[in-house]
């Protein structure tokens, strides 16, 4: 008899969970009553017990029948289910026995018949208890009772975008493209949810889900997929179990979303098709490697700058209005902070505002870019973070790490073409070897942290915007990169051939020598290290490698605009909010000589850069996958920008003795550099609190939010306190009255006059002839205002 499919059987089957409660309640209660009347069979309870035995026993039979229907219709299987089935059937049979023996008492009432009845009743109850417990475990999970709270729910987020309904309502067959798309979705779901434990990296339950053969081979519990029969497929059973169930998959983390389950179910229903060559279609988004030069939209309505034409095109598509252009004051402050990391002086501000030349913005921007030392001192911070170059830190104590500051500073100062910059990092001389040399730790380190692997990871992350960290230990489950590819890349940095280690265990396989992309050419595996590095440097900077310039332009864009075109900036395979803009900037950058200052000039002269900044209520919005670009994002001053601004305004935050690198040691110190720039001193408690990272690992974005520890440092930290104290004394000497101090400090710090109310408040605090302490506290209050702290 075919139970499958027919609605009535399905309906009756689903009554099983309801019906089972009757025999449980009735027979257990009958048993209890039986115990109460154990001394006297003919107690007043007897008729009730008899009725309960009848009803309980018959309902047990119904429950068993419904249970079998349910199991057949759901195509479930498993050890626990088998045991439940056996004990359930046994309960039904035993219930009939109890009814029989009870009936016999009414005809042959002897001590023996009573005992027989009672024994059969209690045996039935025992078996019933076992069956019931197993049933509950199947439904609710085996730790249902022990875990009092259901602590996880199915997540609401669907990780794919496949519309199952389209195919369900369609003709029932898929065309080739649909097949491929469906399979791609299935593989993506498996990759994101299952590879962690079921791929080359880690194979639990002898099951691998990362290739066709493995998926159809199944695992330790046999076949997981029955093409055409999702309900018979173990994979469907496992991913649809409740959260706390022992056999549920994924066993760690969140369950699959209903739509994801529906996608897998649909794929199996359609025959689990796996067309030839499907693997070539990555389940991860992979960005195009070669450069691409999009056609620029036509210029119109005063929108002529190439960047603006592309942005305008985007705005039109998204129906987003342009922001107002900012005033001169805001623009000048912005380019000063972005290009040289300093505040303009009030005199510079005035002369900019009074400048009447129509192209004054580009003239001033160019002039800032030409302040080579100031530019280098500012951008040194960004590159120190990215290249994990620091003056002190782990590794230096044992000469296991090399500082590249002088090379870096000079490269920035001379605006070395990025192409050359990269080549010198990859194929270094003594002055720039620190980046690929990495940090040599004493003692044994995990093989995924060998210096060669560090080089592979860091070159990948910083220069190419890709994450090789997973693949340096095992085949990645967040990308298509494989362990052997990571090793082949790391091998380029090695003196002798590396042996591939999987999860820190040697595999006996020696690594080959290859660049991550075949398109970029070969590396001679027999060559020595110097030659391999030379070949690598040439290969990565060739024009065909669009990824190098895309990664760089995206970083600079983020520094100036507050948010990358692609985020996170180290994951360039992610989707940009405008592919055209990214591609145009990258190809323009490469074609015009990899000139970083020129790139900043393009961005700085665009209208979009000159537009009012936009606000964000929640920082997560910035990282969201569906981020919509609306304009420059407001940022907080970095630790270095804030320190330098205080040094400019009040008194130097750092003594010249604190300089760890002095670019002017060869020449007489010029008056322009009257204080030690924060980028040139070692990390300390003050800078750490304000966000300078530990440069033991690469860091390409700073935490931009304020924190309590930061505020404590600013509120009662010794460094800022003593700097302001010293500065206040000088101001007290210099200015005759409170009003002058207020006016002058507002002019210097905020480039404006205090408003009437502000003046009133400040005057109240300072009085006619303020004490140094009062001046100090006034400085403090102004410096911590958002108006000073933010780049807007």
């Amino acid at each position, binding site marked *: 008899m075919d139970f499958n499919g027919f609605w009535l059987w399905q309906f009756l089957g689903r009554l099983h969970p309801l019906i089972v409660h009757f025999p449980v309640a009735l027979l257990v209660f009958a048993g209890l009553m039986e115990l109460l009347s154990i001394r006297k069979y003919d107690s007043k309870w007897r008729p009730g017990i008899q009725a309960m035995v009848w009803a309980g026993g018959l309902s047990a039979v119904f429950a068993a029948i419904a249970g079998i229907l349910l199991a057949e219709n759901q195509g479930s299987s498993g050890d626990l289910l088998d045991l439940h089935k056996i004990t359930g059937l046994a309960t039904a049979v035993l219930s009939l026995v109890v009814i029989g023996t009870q009936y016999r008492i009414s005809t042959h009432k002897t001590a023996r018949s009573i005992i027989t009845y009672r024994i059969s009743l209690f045996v039935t109850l025992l078996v019933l208890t076992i069956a019931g417990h197993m049933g509950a475990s199947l439904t609710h999970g085996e730790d249902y009772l*022990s*875990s009092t709270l259901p*602590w996880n729910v199915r997540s*609401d987020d669907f990780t794919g975008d496949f519309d199952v309904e389209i195919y369900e309502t369609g003709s029932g067959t898929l065309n080739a493209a649909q097949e491929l798309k469906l399979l791609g979705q299935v593989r993506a779901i498996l990759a994101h949810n299952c590879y962690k434990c079921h791929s080359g990296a880690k194979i639990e339950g002898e099951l691998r889900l990362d290739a066709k053969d493995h998926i159809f081979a199944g695992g330790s519990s046999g076949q997981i997929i029955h093409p055409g029969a999702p309900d018979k497929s173990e994979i469907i059973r496992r991913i649809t179990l409740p959260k706390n169930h022992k056999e549920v998959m994924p066993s760690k983390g*969140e369950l699959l979303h209903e739509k994801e389950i529906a996608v897998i179910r649909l794929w199996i229903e359609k025959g689990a098709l796996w067309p030839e060559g499907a693997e070539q279609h990555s389940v*991860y*988004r992979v960005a195009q490697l070669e450069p691409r030069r999009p056609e620029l939209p036509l210029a119109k309505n005063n929108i002529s700058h190439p960047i603006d034409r592309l942005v305008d095109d985007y705005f039109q598509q998204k129906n987003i209005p342009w922001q107002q252009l900012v005033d001169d004051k805001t623009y000048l402050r912005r380019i000063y902070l972005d290009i040289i990391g300093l505040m303009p002086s009030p005199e510079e501000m005035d002369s900019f505002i009074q400048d009447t030349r129509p192209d004054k913005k580009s003239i001033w921007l160019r002039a800032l870019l030409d302040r080579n030392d100031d530019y280098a001192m500012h951008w040194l911070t960004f590159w120190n973070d990215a290249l994990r170059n620091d003056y002190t*830190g782990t590794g*230096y*104590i044992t000469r296991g790490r090399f500082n590249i500051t002088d090379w870096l500073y000079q490269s920035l100062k001379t605006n070395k073409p990025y192409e050359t910059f990269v080549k010198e990092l990859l194929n270094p001389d003594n002055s720039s070897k620190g980046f690929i040399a990495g*940090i040599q*730790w*004493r*003692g*044994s*380190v995990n093989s995924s*942290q060998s210096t060669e692997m560090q080089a592979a990871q860091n070159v990948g992350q910083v220069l190419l915007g890709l994450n090789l*960290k*997973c693949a340096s230990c095992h085949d990645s489950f*967040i990308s298509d990169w494989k362990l052997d590819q990571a090793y082949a890349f790391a091998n380029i940095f090695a003196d002798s051939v590396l042996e591939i280690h999987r999860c820190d265990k040697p595999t006996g396989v020696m690594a080959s020598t290859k660049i991550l992309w075949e398109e970029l050419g070969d590396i001679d595996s027999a060559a020595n290290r110097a030659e391999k590095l030379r070949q690598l440097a040439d290969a990565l900077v060739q024009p065909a490698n669009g990824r190098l310039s895309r990664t760089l332009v995206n970083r600079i864009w983020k520094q100036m605009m507050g948010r990358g075109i692609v985020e996170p900036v180290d*994951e360039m395979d992610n*989707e940009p909010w405008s592919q055209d803009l990214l591609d145009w900037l990258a190809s323009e950058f490469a074609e015009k000589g990899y000139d970083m200052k020129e790139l900043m000039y393009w961005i700085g002269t665009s209208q979009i850069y000159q537009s009012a*900044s936009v606000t*964000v*209520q929640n*920082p*997560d919005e910035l*990282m*969201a*996958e569906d981020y919509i670009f609306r304009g420059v994002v*407001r940022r907080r001053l970095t630790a270095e920008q804030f320190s330098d601004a205080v040094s400019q305004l009040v008194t130097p935050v750092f003594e010249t003795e604190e300089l760890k690198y002095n670019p002017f040691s060869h020449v007489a110190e010029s008056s322009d550099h009257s204080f030690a720039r924060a980028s040139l001193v070692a990390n300390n*408690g003050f800078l750490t*609190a304000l*966000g300078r990272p*530990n440069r033991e*690992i690469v860091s390409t974005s700073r*935490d*931009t*939010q*304020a*924190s*309590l*520890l*930061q*505020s*404590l440092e600013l*509120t*009662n930290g*010794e460094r800022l306190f003593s700097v302001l104290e010293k500065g206040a004394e000088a101001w007290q000497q210099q200015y005759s009255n409170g009003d002058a101090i207020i006016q002058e400090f507002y002019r210097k710090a*905020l480039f404006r006059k205090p408003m009437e109310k*502000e003046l009133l*408040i400040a005057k109240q*605090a300072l009085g006619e002839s303020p004490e140094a302490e009062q001046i100090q*506290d006034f400085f403090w*209050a102004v410096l*911590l*205002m*958002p108006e000073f*702290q*933010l780049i807007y």
Partner: protein
Amino acid sequence: MMNYNIKRRDFIKKTGAAVAATMALGGPTTGLLTSCQRGKTNSSSADTVILLYMAGGMAHTETFDPKKYTPYRKGMESAEVLSTFPSVPTALDGIYFSEGLEAIGQIMDKGTLIRSYVAADLGHILHTRHQYHWHTCYEPPQSVLVPHIGSWIAKELGQLNPAIPAFINIGQRFSVGEGEELKAFHSAGFLGSEYGPFLIPDPTTGLDSVRPPKGMTPQRFEARNKLYEQLISESAMGEFGSDYQKESLKRSMEQAYILLNSPEAKAFDLSLEPEESYNIYNTGKFGLGCLLAKRLTEQGARFITVTTEYEPFMGWDTHENGHTRLVDMKKLIDAPIAQLIKDLDQSGRLDRTMVIVASEFSRDMLTEGRPELKVKDQVEVPDIIDDMKHYGMHRHFTDGCSILMFGGGIKRGYVYGKTADERPCKTIEKPIKIDSIHQTIYHALGIDPETHYDIEKRPFYTTPDGKGVAELELLSHFSS
């Protein structure tokens, strides 16, 4: 590319009161963090953790697991020395400590003695790497910055009292040797600086960290804050509307003000402690650190660590004169640790406060590393001892270390594990590793063992891969 972040954040918000509290108090949250497995409201047996850290490698045979005593004599063989102190009885039958730890011995009925901690094999022995491992549970180096255990706790549970930082680190200066290496793990790592350690290098000046700057009267501090608030409310930035940057700055400034102005800040003032009590604790910086920890606990601290301070070749880092140095070290720790436990017990706080005494590894006279996996010797140990300075445990031993645990659900009067009585005096029963220790602490605090965040799309758990199982045998009332 798939991005789970946003929706998962919503998900966290829906869960766990603890998380809600963290958000309310901590205010800014770190972008890019996606919590999973949060919100399982485990029952907990502890609210507060005090970690008393014996930095530099404390020899088990000279402290909490003494072996046969061989007094010093000129010409003795180094191989015959297992302990350089006689043993003294403790409150527990048949359990002896090394001479000089009598006070701690007398409170062992209040806690558990673990004699079988096995430190990791990291090749060449380095204190800072093993300390990194002890405090983060991850072996250095890592390709991301991993958080200190205190930061995990701060992140998951938040402040107990909004006026007391969630993670307080007492006694370590970073200006000493290998200070840079120490900084690497005194960090909230990828959890974000909000959860980093509040550093009090010197407990006697701890108050300075939480009160208005030196020389600033409360009136002046008050006036300054008022000025700031008034100027902000009038500032032109108002016209830009609300923004998370602005809001997070304002909020954190307010928090700092609350903290610096709170009556609880008095907890940092050791001079308010009764003289008698102060004198018991005052064995030095470490002892006063214990006192500060006690006072902070009274006000509702979440995680405090007090260290004997790591400085190469100082403190427990005995490369010579091990015996004589340990006489001093025991004087430093014995009375304050015992008094801390007694005080917490008396006030009833020990029930919900877990105190841990631990070190990165142990020491031995002969074995460097562990017997099966010896590593390069770093200390010259002569076969025949002719000079008192060679009398002591000078090599680094990883295969048997002692940990004391008290309170917060830890069993009273219990001994866990065992080391051999003969050299190499290694663990022979119930070896326990750092991931189990961490998971036991998290378990007591009610932090789910699978708590993790996706960092660069990879899951990072409180312990590597979420491994390590809480050792329930250490806890008196197991409840799930």
